[in-house]
């Protein structure tokens, strides 16, 4: 009975589901209404024989009443409920929140994973996030669609896609593609060790924030990444059909239950079907029996079969949520094939969450992420953990050294990680009065040498919260000639500390972020909450640069280099001024091939690059043995032969006018070799033939 719900709430729900009042039940059991009420409010429990009677009244068996893991009548129909149009005639042709981001897979990976991180349950363990791409076609597609009750949606889709608004066009394209290819792409995002969608159906809580509301940032702690409640809209934006199904295992029971809370939500523009107008959203669920929400589809506690038919079954009982994006696509358009989408997701996870995925030797990572790809229920690309070191090894090294307390104050070896503190003065809140003082937060700066393969380097990655990257900025005034480096700035909770200044800094920086959470700058919220905030941010940036300069900057040289005006005229490394030199005005040796022949002579083939001109070129080839120091011995030719575009006249290679490339062969005279040819390298030069008119 451990999964079972409390008897009272369970019975209450059964009565509502059967439209039976407490009085009615009391009458059929031959009791007073007060007795039934006592059960429902939990003041009393029915005796064993009474349980049998209750079961028969509810039309179920005794075990169901005993266990209370399912509802007495599971077969309340699951159906789509479409919100009727607004009474005032207003029409919405799309969900504005969905346009706040691009419907790019990379953005989805970032937003969805950030939400999972924010809902991490056991903070000593990583939250596990898995992205599964799943392509359905043929038989698999039709059984999925029938589980989805597609027949209740078709008319709405048709009506909505006729709209000439943007959302309508996307829908039309999605429907057309599904019909033409007879296939549908599902993208499932699972998290484990997360809170799950807890809370009541309509009132404040995680469930309502995701399923029922827009722009509700229901964050469970002040450590959260976002603050606008926009991130979840990317789930719907990624679906061409505006359709997302959800299965959540709750961390706190709701209606006495935790497992398989299913619901579907569809975002369509305003439409008219069979003469009745509908506003945007629709929900898949059981028809509600509560008076205020009669007829609205609400989340239901599904059985295993339903969940698997909808590809929503979760792999373990660990709490968390599975989102199934139906008709997923990459609006950026740069990932079409399954492999490309798979790779793009992996790359986006590594790029955005390398820090959260980095573990120390004693500290667990905050996040484990993986990606896998399936087609019709079988694996195409097996599940693979995203390893942050593959794409960001130097950055991961920096963070790991910090977690393991292995940083150094000054870099002396290329694997080392330097550590410094960067002060941020958080001004007092406006409403705390004039006397309040700001607090100083010490952000952490980590610097290490860039790896050779790092494509992006010499930037400062700024993070806060659950080590999410807010921005990557180019530091200023580092001085010239700084070697490539990787630097991370950890501010607020990202430092892993918990002092008061950390809370203040976190709140301050979060307030400074725009909805994209991609920079620390002046926002309405910031200026409204903190006086002098903009100046503090400027100081913060300057402090970052100066701390970085301390670590990577070159030491200043004594200025003995003389007056600038003279120095610029004496630079050795720039070509002559105004000498717009024609590239390669002379024949050059492009390559030489050859081997030592049986007689011990070098047999060479020389390929020349020739600038075309109207006169012939007359060239003398010169072969020499290459030696480490001193004069190189010159070899004489025993034979010169023309190979391409040239003639040999008296040991001179004559190249005809207007030729661009030429080749000749040559064999050295063994008698001119000071050592055996097998013991020396050979080089070939060409010189202007002596006495010839160039």
């Amino acid at each position, binding site marked *: 009975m451990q999964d079972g719900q409390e008897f009272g709430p369970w019975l209450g729900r059964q009565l509502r589901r059967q439209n039976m009042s407490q009085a009615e039940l009391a009458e059929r059991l031959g009791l007073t209404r007060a007795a039934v009420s006592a059960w429902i409010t939990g003041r009393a429990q029915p005796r064993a024989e009474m349980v049998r009677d209750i079961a028969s009244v509810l039309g179920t068996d005794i075990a169901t009443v005993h266990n209370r893991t399912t509802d007495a009548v599971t077969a309340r129909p699951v159906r789509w409920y479409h919100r009727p149009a607004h009474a005032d005639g207003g029409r919405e042709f799309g969900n504005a929140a969905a346009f706040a981001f691009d419907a790019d897979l990379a953005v989805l990976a970032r937003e969805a994973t950030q939400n999972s991180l924010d809902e991490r349950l056991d903070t000593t363990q990583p939250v596990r996030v898995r992205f599964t791409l799943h392509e359905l076609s043929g038989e698999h597609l039709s059984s999925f669609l029938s589980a989805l009750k597609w027949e209740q949606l078709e008319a709405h889709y048709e009506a909505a896609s006729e709209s000439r608004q943007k959302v309508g066009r996307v829908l039309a394209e999605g429907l057309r593609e599904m019909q033409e290819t007879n296939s549908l792409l599902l993208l499932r995002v699972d998290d484990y060790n997360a809170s799950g969608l807890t809370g009541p159906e309509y009132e404040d809580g995680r469930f309502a924030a995701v399923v029922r509301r827009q722009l509700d940032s229901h964050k469970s702690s002040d450590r959260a990444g976002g603050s606008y409640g926009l991130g979840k809209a990317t789930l719907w934006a990624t679906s061409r059909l505006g359709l997302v199904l959800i299965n959540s295992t709750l961390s706190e029971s709701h209606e006495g239950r935790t497992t398989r809370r299913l619901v579907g939500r569809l975002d369509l523009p305003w439409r008219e079907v069979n003469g009745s107008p509908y506003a945007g959203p629709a929900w898949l669920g059981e028809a509600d029996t509560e008076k205020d929400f009669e007829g609205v589809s609400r989340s239901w506690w599904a059985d295993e079969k339903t969940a698997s038919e909808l590809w929503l079954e979760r792999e373990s009982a660990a709490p968390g949520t599975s989102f199934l994006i139906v008709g997923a696509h990459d609006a950026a358009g740069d990932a079409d094939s399954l492999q490309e989408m798979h790779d793009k997701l992996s790359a986006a996870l590594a790029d955005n969450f390398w820090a959260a995925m980095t573990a120390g030797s004693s500290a667990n990572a905050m996040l484990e992420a993986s990606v896998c790809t399936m087609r019709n229920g079988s694996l195409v690309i097996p599940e693979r953990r995203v390893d942050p070191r593959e794409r960001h090894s130097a950055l991961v090294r920096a963070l790991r050294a910090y977690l393991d307390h292995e940083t150094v104050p*000054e*870099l*002396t*070896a*290329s694997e*080392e990680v330097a550590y410094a503190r960067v002060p941020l003065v958080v001004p007092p809140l406006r409403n705390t009065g004039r006397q309040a003082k700001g607090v100083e937060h010490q952000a952490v700066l980590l610097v290490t*040498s860039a790896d*050779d393969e790092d494509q992006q380097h010499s930037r400062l990655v700024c993070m806060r919260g659950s080590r999410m990257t807010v921005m990557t900025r180019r530091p200023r005034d580092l001085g010239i*000639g700084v*070697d490539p480096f990787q630097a991370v700035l950890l501010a607020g909770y990202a430092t892993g500390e918990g002092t008061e200044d950390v809370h203040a800094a976190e709140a301050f920086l979060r307030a400074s972020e725009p909805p994209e959470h991609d920079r620390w700058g002046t926002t309405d919220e910031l200026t409204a909450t903190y006086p002098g905030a903009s100046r503090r941010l400027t100081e913060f940036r300057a402090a970052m640069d100066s701390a970085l300069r301390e670590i*990577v*900057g*070159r*030491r200043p*040289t*004594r200025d*003995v*280099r*003389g*007056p600038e*005006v*003279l*120095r610029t*005229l*004496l630079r*050795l*490394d720039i*070509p*002559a*001024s*105004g000498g717009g030199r024609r590239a390669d*005005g*002379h*024949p*050059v*040796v492009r*390559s*030489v*091939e050859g*081997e030592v022949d049986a007689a011990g002579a*070098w047999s*060479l083939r020389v390929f020349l690059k020739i600038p075309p001109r109207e006169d012939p070129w007359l060239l003398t080839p*010169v072969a*020499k043995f*290459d030696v480490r120091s001193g*004069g*190189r*011995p*010159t070899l004489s030719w025993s034979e010169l032969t023309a190979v391409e575009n040239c003639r040999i006249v008296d040991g001179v290679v004559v190249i005809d006018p207007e030729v661009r490339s030429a080749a000749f062969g040559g064999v050295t005279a063994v008698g001119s070799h000071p050592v055996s*040819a*097998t*013991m020396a*390298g*050979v*080089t*070939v*030069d060409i*010189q*202007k033939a002596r006495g010839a008119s*160039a």
Partner: protein
Amino acid sequence: MNTLFPYPTLVGEIEVRVKQVRIDGKPLSLSVVSRPQRAVALHQVERPNWEDGSIDLEVTLPELELADGPWSEVACVAILTEGSTNTRVVRRLQRDRLSSTWSGSVPVLRAMHRDRATLNVSAVATVGGVAGRTIGTADEAWIIDLLARTPVRQREIEIAEADFRDGPQEWLRPFKDAPWLVETAGEMPTILLNSSFEGITQLLKGSGNPLEKAASGLVAAQIAGEAWTAMFHSAVADLELDDDGAPLIPSGWRESVLRTMLPDVLPGLALADALIEVHNRHAAGYGWAELQSQIHFAASRRAQVPKNLTTAVRAITRSQEGATR
């Protein structure tokens, strides 16, 4: 110029990274190492009299190519050389089986070097029964500069102030009336500005009104022109010869000077041909006088004499206009 060997050599690249630098056992800040420039600066203001330095290297060889190729007993060596002291230090590097890189440490003994050493890495193997053959060398050597404080590859011509009349350097006394002197005999050409010549240093730092700037530019152009001429002569006089008497392209600043000036001195000739021509004229003496105007032209072009003169003329004209108004 690519050299052809009578045995198979590596096509893949050899990558060299400097991991750590120490002097007298103390690790130095990584800011003395520049990876893009491949240079290490060893001079420490805080520790000018160090004796014993070392450079830790990590080298990646084209392992796949090595595994499939005809080479056996492959070794990887680091070679530290300095031409002026004829120093040559060779150290074997050890292969790390896990990371398949080669690493080791090369000693830099202060007493064995003058100012700039070159560090390169070669792969050596047995090929065709002959042991110890070089089968590959890193494309670009590292520069170990014992006198520099910042790791830069390209050195600058030195400009120094000295008191010609009363300074400690006796040999400058005879030149006490000269405002500057160009010296090209040393490792790097040096321009000495005579601080006892009143006003020269202030003039060169000239800022403020356009006339002062113009004068400063004009003087700088003249000094630079003389310097380029002197450097060219010095570079041509110092050429090393091959066995057949053909001059070799020198290294260091001489190479830069010849490469930038020869196209103006002998237009239309390839660098090697122009070098032979210049060398022949200088050595044999015929046609050397005729070349002087070309050298002068090339030098004044490098010193931007025309541009500075135009600026000066304009500044003077403008100041006169201002005066008459």
